[in-house]
């Protein structure tokens, strides 16, 4: 059993929080994992991607070879597209439909989404809308995590427990909003 995931987004969009939840859930489930992340200069509003590998045995490389990723999980549609060459021919893309436009030449969103949908399996959720519905627009990353949950090889209970651990210190309303964001994302994905 193994799962290779490319996490994508823009610096500041909370992809490292998604990684944190997955890492801790993997530890709880007794899996091995390696997660290569981006720090420093690239985080200042630049494209950010993290390679996240899960397995029940040895994982050698911290980086995923091209053509090997089972899943691209992106907080932003253009960034999902940027790493398509990492995806297996039968891989899945889970992405938000909400573009993050901090560049002047952002391509046409409809075209981007159309290209995303060419992946063998794609799940596109409106993370911004769902996060607002959950109670905080900041929880878009957790909406996406919820949308990916049905595909992940991790126990859902472990994911929820780690979300709990991550947000408990920030007060009950924030915790509840994030758990709700997770559920809304999950439901949206299952409906597709």
């Amino acid at each position, binding site marked *: 059993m193994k799962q290779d995931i490319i996490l994508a987004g823009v610096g500041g969009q909370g992809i490292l929080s998604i*990684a944190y939840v997955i890492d801790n859930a993997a530890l709880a489930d007794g899996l091995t994992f390696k997660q*290569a*992340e981006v720090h420093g200069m*690239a985080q200042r509003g630049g494209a950010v991607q993290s390679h996240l590998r899960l397995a029940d045995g040895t994982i050698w490389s911290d980086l995923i070879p091209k053509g090997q990723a089972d899943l691209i999980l992106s907080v932003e549609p253009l960034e999902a597209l940027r790493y*398509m060459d990492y*995806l*297996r*021919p039968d891989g899945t893309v889970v992405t938000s439909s909400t573009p993050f436009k*901090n560049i002047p030449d952002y391509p046409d969103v409809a075209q*981007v989404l159309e290209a995303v949908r060419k992946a063998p399996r794609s799940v596109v959720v409106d993370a911004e809308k769902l996060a607002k519905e959950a109670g905080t627009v900041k929880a878009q990353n957790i909406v996406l995590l919820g949308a990916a949950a049905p595909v992940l090889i991790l126990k859902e209970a472990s994911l929820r427990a780690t979300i709990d651990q991550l947000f408990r210190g920030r007060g009950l309303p924030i915790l509840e909003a994030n758990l709700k964001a997770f559920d809304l994302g999950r439901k949206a994905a299952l409906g597709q």
Partner: protein
Amino acid sequence: MSRQILLGDEAVALGAVHAGLSAAYSYPGTPASEIMEYLVRLSAESRAFAAVWSVNEKVAYEEALGASFAGKRAMVSFKHVGLNVAADPFMNSAITGANGGLLAVSADDPGMHSSQNEQDSRFYVQFAQIPGFEPSDHQEAYDMAREAFDLSEKFGLPVLMRLVTRLSHSRSAVETREARPQNELKKGTGKDWILLPGNARGRFSQLLDRQAEMVRCSEESRFNRLELNAGDRSFGVIASGIAYNYFREAVAGDAAPPSFLKISTYPLPESLVRRLVAHVDKVLVLEDGYPFIERQVRGLFGVPGKTVLGRASGDVPASGELTPDIVRRALGLGPLPALPVSGLPLANRPPQLCAGCPHADTFKALNKALEGRAGASVFGDIGCYTLGALPPFNAINSCVCMGASISMARGASDAGLHPAVSVIGDSTFAHSGITPLLGAARADADMTVIILDNATTAMTGGQPTYGSGQPLLRLIEGLGVPKEHIRTIEPLPKNHETNVRIIRDEIEHRGLSVIVAVRECIQEQRKKRS
């Protein structure tokens, strides 16, 4: 024993703590900063050891050396270019030796994710002729940090560990072991620590005498691994550090992988290298960084009858970070089947200053003040404000190394360029800007220094700074800058006109002036509020 999720950087830090660390020093720099970030957190909880952000890497190294002199186990960490700053005490510490265990950690950045160059710290291990480690994964990073201190005390020498960005910033679970107690105080004795030529000559020849023993120690290390494929004598692989992982990944499914030697210790484990080379006709050397091992294996004229491949031979790209895909290609394996890419043009998303960053307002004012001055040169430095080189600002003409903005402006001004402007952050100024400003003040050099005081070391995540606020202003005055030419501005859009005027006035002044732009980094402000 417990399993903990750690960054590669954190694994080194925790290994050091469990080895009985008493004091750690560092100056922030990506990808090494998380070592000290983690130690600062641990030390705030336990108060068991000192964890100090130093004013620069040279100072950090000397502080650690002092702790070692006192008999305690000490660590110093920095990014690869930081080791250049610390090179003076580093090289000399190979001669003084270490008393309490001394571990230096240098995090290299192949691929230049956030650095000015790709240099390979393993050359410094060789340069100083001390033992070195290069972990391939998190567990090794933890285990090696523990063992490095034992080895340092065994040889009475500092030990250098080399990391690369990929490992520093990768997260995985690590099995930890029980902590060892700290050393008792026991100060360094004899003349070892007095590097007068008479003493240093003796110490240097002792260092040379120990080389064979170091090689033996490296050959016996459990971190190296030689596996010979008896059925195939045509081809073998030498892989060091993280490159080993990419190699094992590429051949993971093979029933009989080629012969290989994993190298994680230096000096090179010679007998292991000889055994591998003797066994095969052709050797591929995989290493992240420079062709350090490859060149040693090949020697000047090659290994007769053998072919050595790697970065120097052109079989692996000469620059950039290794990846599993590059390693597959070098092994002669084809790419894995992947999806055809969409062909849609993907706009680049370069890093940029945060919206509302104070530096942006300074650059806007500076650009305006310099309008129409064809000879103007702006010397930049290392920090968030280096991003001022990119559009929309295009505001700086150079960025070389910490502090170089001031010294280069001085040189350019001596050469006749006018206006010569330097732009440097508060933390960088404290790191390496004070001494060149002292020189410029003594000469009243015709230049303008703009110090961006945002009260933090922002680029690396907001570490403390030594050169901010009133103490900074007093320092500048103390260096001999004329008081009437020390000006402060507040970089805000509403102050634009005023700021342009002040900058213009000081540029027109034919002598030294220092303008301090004071406004806190908005990321730090936000952190304080939440």
